[in-house]
């Protein structure tokens, strides 16, 4: 086999693999990361290499806390930005950081991004 054919086969395999891995649509969190304490809604999100879960459903019209957990996090996810409330902070490498959100309207979407833009998470309020 000539090198062109070999490289095309390898390329196809790799691209196929990459597509398989990337095109999984973000499902709503299978783990329950939303809890209510003293009339306050708490959404837990872990930050390391990615934000997990990537999509969260939460209740609208309720004071809400975003609780971001870091554990040996040194990548971009530790520099968090929540544009809708003008928030940007460098999270500690290990620890939890609480971000207060005002009650959101039904249908509102709050998005968190890392400072360079390649990682993100979404919270939908219903």
């Amino acid at each position: 086999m000539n090198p062109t054919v070999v490289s095309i086969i390898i390329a196809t395999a790799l691209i196929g693999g990459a597509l398989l891995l990337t095109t999984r649509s973000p499902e709503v969190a299978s783990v329950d990361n939303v809890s209510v304490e003293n009339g306050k809604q708490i959404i837990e999100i872990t930050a390391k290499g990615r934000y997990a879960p990537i999509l969260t459903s939460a209740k609208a019209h309720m004071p809400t806390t975003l609780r971001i957990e870091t554990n040996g996090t040194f990548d971009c996810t530790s520099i968090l930005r929540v544009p809708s409330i003008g928030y940007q902070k460098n999270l500690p490498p290990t620890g939890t950081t609480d971000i207060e959100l005002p009650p959101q309207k039904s249908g509102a979407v709050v998005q968190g991004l890392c400072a360079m833009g390649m990682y993100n998470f979404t919270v939908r309020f219903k």
Partner: protein
Amino acid sequence: MHCAACPVLIKSELEDMPEVSSAKPSLKHHTVEVSGDFGDKTQEHIARDLTEVVKTHGYSVSVEKHRHGVRWSEFSLAVPIALAFIALFIILQKLGIVNLVTTANVTYGTAFVIGLIASVSTCMAVVGGLVLSMSANFAKEGDKIRPQVLFHIGRLVSFFLLGGVIGLLGSTFVLGATGTFILSFTVALILLVLGINLLDIFPWMKRWQPTLPSFISRHIHGLKEVNHSLTPVLVGVATFFLPCGFTQSMQIYTLTTGSFWTGAFTMSAFALGTLPVLALLSFSSLAIRKKAQSGVFFKTAGLVVIFFGLFNLINSLVAVGLIPPVFSF
């Protein structure tokens, strides 16, 4: 001719010849207009004589303008290789390599490991893209090992010194949202230009290549030298400030140390961790530039650099909220 300083150099070299009364090089047209008394030599003979003088600087003079031919056939190999590299990059991100860091205490060893990981992470799209495009462009122009080594020295020294400074001051150069955006956007544009340049299909793009402005280079002697040694050092120093999550979080850790030496050694350990992959990127262009496959290599590098440029461009627009997220790792 590729830099604002070249015409000045060529002019001064040619006018030093006794036969030449004036030489007018043009960067725009890649030509030089020479007048003088050459006796009854043929045009070809004169061109050979002129070449002798400027040869040491890597130029040659010919009567006819070099025709620019695009070797499209090289793309048939370059495209699949570039796509394979990009796919590998995406798979690496999906594998969750950052999870290899399990400790919360930063020792010099951890900093080194974080550097190793950073060099194959999304940071590669920024720093790696820049290293690849710069070294490939230099190699294409026939430069030897020096610019590459100077880049790495510039990077290591700046990480040592600036790491020490932020350790000592306890404050950092972390940019705000606007600063990060401007920087990422600029880097993305530079990568796109350098990448397209490497493809070697639009010769007129060369004019956009970022170099020292001519009003500076005109006043410095050893003109080509300066451009090819100062530029890599400065780019190396600048990588300290480039938007990369790992670099930034290491800097944030460093500022908590409150000591010049701890800061300097932590940032140096991190920079050393990134060295193997970056060195591989910069010296592979050197190794291959004389080989028959060099055309394929430069085109592959160009495609990869263009991908990194687009990746940064999209991410920078996402980060300021102008467009919804495209990549989600």
